[in-house]
């Protein structure tokens, strides 16, 4: 996978370049300022952009805003956001379109899981951090529709929301994939179909 990185911490950026290089990926561009991302993408034509949420110039959510601008200009470019902490407000708008991931930065330390997630996003799928999914799947009111799910259903919905395939979800319990498809359907109040998957918890909650 050819990657453009947007990350202002030199230590983290270099670590990521090394990690990806060691596993057969190619970092074709790396910028430290959100304002330079579009130019890097235009020039390097990557398969994936990996972007830190908080970057210069403002050190707030510049990376997330740059990601939205990239999505508007190159709708097919997969984007993987990295964040230092759990937050869900940047998900809306990006998450429902596929080819999008949002992970906590320290997930890079689980190298295999991280590379899996990266490949999934690069292939047009999604990868949402388990901690962020958990925050989205916690019922906030007594009459929250999430309260109606059994704990197993909620667990399955969480894995689907992280971006795992039916087969991967089934693999967690050594099921054939049919029951997980059934539970996915049961876990999605907005969808009665057995084939339509709820793409992400974020999308479903919004």
């Amino acid at each position, binding site marked *: 996978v050819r990657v453009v990185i947007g990350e202002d*911490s030199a*230590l*983290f950026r270099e*670590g*990521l370049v*090394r*990690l990806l290089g*060691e596993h057969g990926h190619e970092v074709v561009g790396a910028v430290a300022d959100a304002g330079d991302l579009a130019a890097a993408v235009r020039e390097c034509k990557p398969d994936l952009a990996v972007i830190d949420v*908080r970057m210069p110039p403002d050190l707030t959510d510049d990376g997330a805003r740059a990601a939205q601008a990239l999505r508007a200009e190159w709708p097919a470019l997969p984007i993987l956001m990295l964040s*230092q*902490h*759990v937050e869900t407000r940047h998900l809306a708008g990006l998450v429902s379109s596929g080819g999008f991931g949002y992970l906590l*930065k*320290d997930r*890079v*330390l*689980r*190298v295999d899981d991280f590379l899996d997630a990266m490949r999934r996003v690069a292939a047009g799928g999604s990868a949402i951090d388990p901690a962020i999914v958990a925050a989205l799947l*916690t*019922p*906030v009111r007594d009459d929250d529709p999430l309260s109606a799910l059994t704990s197993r259903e909620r667990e399955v919905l969480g894995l689907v929301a992280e971006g795992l395939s039916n087969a991967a979800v089934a693999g967690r319990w050594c099921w054939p994939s049919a029951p997980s498809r059934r539970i996915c359907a049961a876990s999605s109040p907005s969808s009665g179909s057995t084939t339509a998957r709820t793409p992400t918890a974020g999308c479903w909650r919004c």
Partner: protein
Amino acid sequence: VSRLRLELRDALTEVNASRSRLVAAAAEERHRLERDLHDGAQQHLVSIGMRLRSVQHRLRADLVAYRDLDEAVLGLEQTIAELRRIAHGVRPSRLDDGVGGARAGFGLTSLRDRIASVGGELTLHSPAGAGTSVRAEIPCAS
């Protein structure tokens, strides 16, 4: 009397303003601490972990050192999670199975002060043996 009333009103306005400033300063300080933890310590720990993973990648998986590095990185991950928890505090998701009997100590008093600083009011309902509810009413600008 009207002059006294005016003076009293001015004094109260001043008290409210200074309370707002104190609350704003505390919030800013907390925000700065959170940012320092995220951008400083946490980011450094992740970078060290990536370094260790890079070393590990060059080792054969059946070596003892390979497993040792797994453990070292796991320790780092736990430390990062702990830092994240400290930076954000723990948010309770449910109230209905509490023990009640809460009294206004430092925490609730400072909450009450913050609400009061924007002209609002905080009420506490906490019968012993049942849940605790805290209600904050803040007037909107209109």
